[in-house]
């Protein structure tokens, strides 16, 4: 049975897409078959991190939701596309990506007409079966909406990303309450964009105390990430960077959590 892991943050710009891409590829590098679905239909973009643009894919999640094609048509094998600083890197497993459309008209259509949220659930299940996935990562829309609620409800584990910021702190409490109402079995908090000046252990302790939920990792704000500017999977470019080591540590925890 594939594990469904949704990545959420109450507010946008927390690094959700970049962390999803990094963690998913780290899991794949352990020989796992991994899928990533961009359900952030209103502000999509994780495909950019994998070097895909609108011209390099013919089908997106939007097409599936409008009944234009089966879900399998929307999944792109990006394993051979994984770039490092000076070439390509082979990973032991597989990475499949289901992008959402970045065309204004397609996004507007979602807002205008809505779609059958039940189709998403069917699509996730079909995808995991047809691609024989070990893990399915869902990059969700920030805050709460119908598809995010569904993703949370069917997740085996949920990763919530927050910055050490008061608005993020308050919003995360909302997400946690909802996740608990939806019976999510496993919840992990990740702190991202922690200022270098902040003491790591103090921030982790503060967050854990506040929510009573384990912090699975803390990532500092760093210039290399800003420079990469979502043009690649960070840890492939900077394998020795502390950010990258933390990515692998989180991937290990998620894999360990799913094995018992």
């Amino acid at each position, binding site marked *: 049975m594939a594990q469904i892991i949704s990545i959420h943050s109450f507010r946008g710009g927390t690094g959700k897409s970049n962390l999803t891409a990094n963690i998913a590829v780290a899991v794949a590098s352990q020989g796992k078959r991994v899928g990533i679905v961009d359900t952030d239909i209103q502000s999509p973009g994780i495909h950019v991190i994998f070097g895909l643009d609108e011209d390099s894919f013919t089908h997106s999640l939007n097409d599936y939701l409008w009944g234009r094609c089966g879900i399998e048509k929307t999944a792109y094998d990006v394993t051979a596309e994984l770039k490092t600083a000076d070439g390509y890197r082979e990973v032991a497993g597989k990475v499949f990506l289901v992008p959402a459309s970045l065309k*204004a*008209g397609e996004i*507007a*259509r*979602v*807002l*205008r*007409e*809505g*779609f*059958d*949220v*039940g189709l998403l*659930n*069917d699509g996730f*299940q079909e995808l995991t079966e047809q691609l024989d996935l070990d893990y399915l990562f869902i990059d969700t829309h920030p805050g*709460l*909406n*119908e*598809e995010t*609620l*569904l993703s949370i*409800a*069917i997740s085996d584990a949920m990763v919530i990303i927050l910055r050490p910021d008061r608005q993020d702190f308050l919003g995360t409490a909302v997400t946690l309450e*909802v996740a608990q*109402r*939806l*019976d999510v079995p496993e919840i992990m908090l990740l702190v991202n964009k922690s200022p270098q000046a902040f003491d790591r252990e103090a921030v982790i302790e503060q967050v854990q105390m506040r929510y009573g939920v384990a912090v699975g990792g803390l990532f500092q704000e760093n210039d290399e990430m800003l420079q990469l500017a979502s043009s690649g999977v960070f840890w492939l470019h900077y394998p020795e960077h502390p950010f990258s080591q933390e990515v692998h540590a989180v991937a290990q925890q998620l894999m360990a959590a799913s094995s018992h």
Partner: protein
Amino acid sequence: MAECNEWQMPQRTGGSPTRTMADLLFLPDLERSLINWLLRQQTATLAEAAAYLNQSEIEAAAVLQDLIEQGFVQWLDQLDPPQYQPKLQRRKGRNMPTKIWDALE
């Protein structure tokens, strides 16, 4: 007990209800956890639902019937064996003047 008010199901008037994921959040614990479980299963037989609830099939059928009437669950009786399935369907579109939408297409 602030929670009691906050999560009280808003009253609706008229028509057969269509339910969304958001409505699910307002259900009481037992019903909510049953649908959460059903969402993960995608479909389940009465026997499976009764086992999950740790209730007799008669009791479970009553809970599920109530959820069908509230519009949260559907009964697929053309399947063999028949199955229950969550019915949390459309993400609602937004009402905006057509001119704005047309400009975006």
